[in-house]
């Protein structure tokens, strides 16, 4: 069973505020307990099945300027910069 403190710590890492704690924490704990079913799956020896490509399929190294002005369409910009809050 996952502890409340651990869930609060993870929420902080994910920059998620959970103030109606009990409801969220309750549901998350329920779901994580459900995930324990994976322990029964007996898949230790399985190889990971991964997608592959050859090096020829990769993008050519060419400079192609992106024509449209992007920064002006975003919020929070000053001059030609994006503004972000100070860091503590």
């Amino acid at each position, binding site marked *: 069973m*996952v502890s409340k403190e651990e869930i609060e710590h*993870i929420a902080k890492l994910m920059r*998620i505020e959970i103030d109606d704690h009990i409801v969220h924490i309750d549901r998350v704990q329920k*779901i994580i307990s459900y995930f324990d079913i994976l322990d029964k799956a007996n*898949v230790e020896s399985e190889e990971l*099945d991964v997608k592959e490509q050859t090096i020829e399929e990769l993008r050519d190294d060419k400079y192609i300027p992106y024509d449209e002005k992007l920064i002006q369409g*975003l919020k929070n910009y000053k001059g030609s910069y*994006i503004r972000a809050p100070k*860091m503590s």
Partner: protein
Amino acid sequence: MNLRISALKYVEEIKNGNITTEEFISKTIERIQKVDSKLHAYLSLNDKAIEQARVVDKKIKSKDGGACMGMPISIKDNICVKGTKTTCASKMLENFVSPYDATVVSRLKEQDAIIVGKTNLDEFAMGFTTEFSAFGPSKNPWNTEYVPGGSSGGSAVAVSALECIASLGSDTGGSVRNPASFCSIVGLKPTYGLISRYGLISYSNSIEQIGPMARTVEDVAFMLNIIAGIDSHDNTTVDNQKQDYLKEIDAGVNGKKIGIIKEMTQEGVDKQVSSATNKAISNFEKLGASIEEISLDMVKYSVAAYYTITATEAGSNLARYDNLRYGYDFDLEGYEFNSYISKARRNFGPEVTRRMILGGFVPSAGHAGRYFLKAMKVKSKLTSEINEALKKVDMLLSPTVPVLPFKFGEKIDDPIALFLVDINTVTANLTGKPAISVPFEISNGLPIGIQLLGKPLHDKQLLQAAYALQNTVKLPEVPI
């Protein structure tokens, strides 16, 4: 003018001069104005649609019209359409106007499709009822007290209620097939890599696909012809050798072997769904297919594996929503960096918030081996099992959803019960295989769909079987 027209019929009528694009688009907009206040399929509409229709009509007159001939298409609001709000049904992206078109949208526009509006979904595609949309749920046009399915609920409603000819949704764990089944339309999740995801706002990028949704199987094939194929903007797309999915769609299933997935058709299935499934099986037998039972043992772990993997990917894919460059109005003056982001992300709804926490937990140091790696291995083993099965049979069959459509509020409080609605559909996503939902029956006014799952890059054969099944039933018209 009948709005319940198929895409192919529409194109024919336009070519014959029986209707014009402007007429059809106007009628569609009238229809939307009439029913959408009840159904809430759309989050935003294209106010330039009629203007664009006039332009297409001119092109058609000079024999220069694209394959879509101005047909009205709706797009799920997690797919970028240039110059439109693309909100993912989230307050977090309330004011995000996309500066570019998704590849699928460019391809449709090139063929003169007209995007009439963006459709509702569960927030960031996480859910299967649209009850998690931050802007209110969509209603099932067959009975507005019932959920339309999700997450591409808005798309399914729009197509089913004749508010457009076809739509593009996205399918991560059943999000195209599930609402297609609940709304009695056709929905395809193609082979992973068949359709470009450039411009699809990522939820779980290693398993999701954009999927065409329409009222007939032929229309889905028509849409696939326009949007499928390799894209340099998406490294995960594969070459489909410019397949024509409409060609020989009536090839039938004579001599084909169909496997019935034991784990998806026996336990936990509503009895009406079960009986519909058996009818579908016998219809296939009458068409000359042979049937056998297939067991996929890993199915019982598939939902846990699915939610583990998607939570991890979602936790990372949604990290960019810090409201600094796009999002909604919330001034950063006076805030410190980390506290601003945490405050800003309170605009995620409760379901997304929970997935973020799961997504932080599952891959975190100390737990990654237990949950994430195990889930990846279950995914691998399930893939081997299904590959073995597809050596013995040509495709697999199951009901799309094990239960009938349910009422709003019914399942929302029990997370596990909600997850298990997905149990028949997540397998196709985890294993990258194409799967389609075909509307099969209306039982006491509620739709039931049958799912077919096929070999990778054999989407054409899947469509042929779906077409054959579709033509064994005649379904009533939508009652709205």
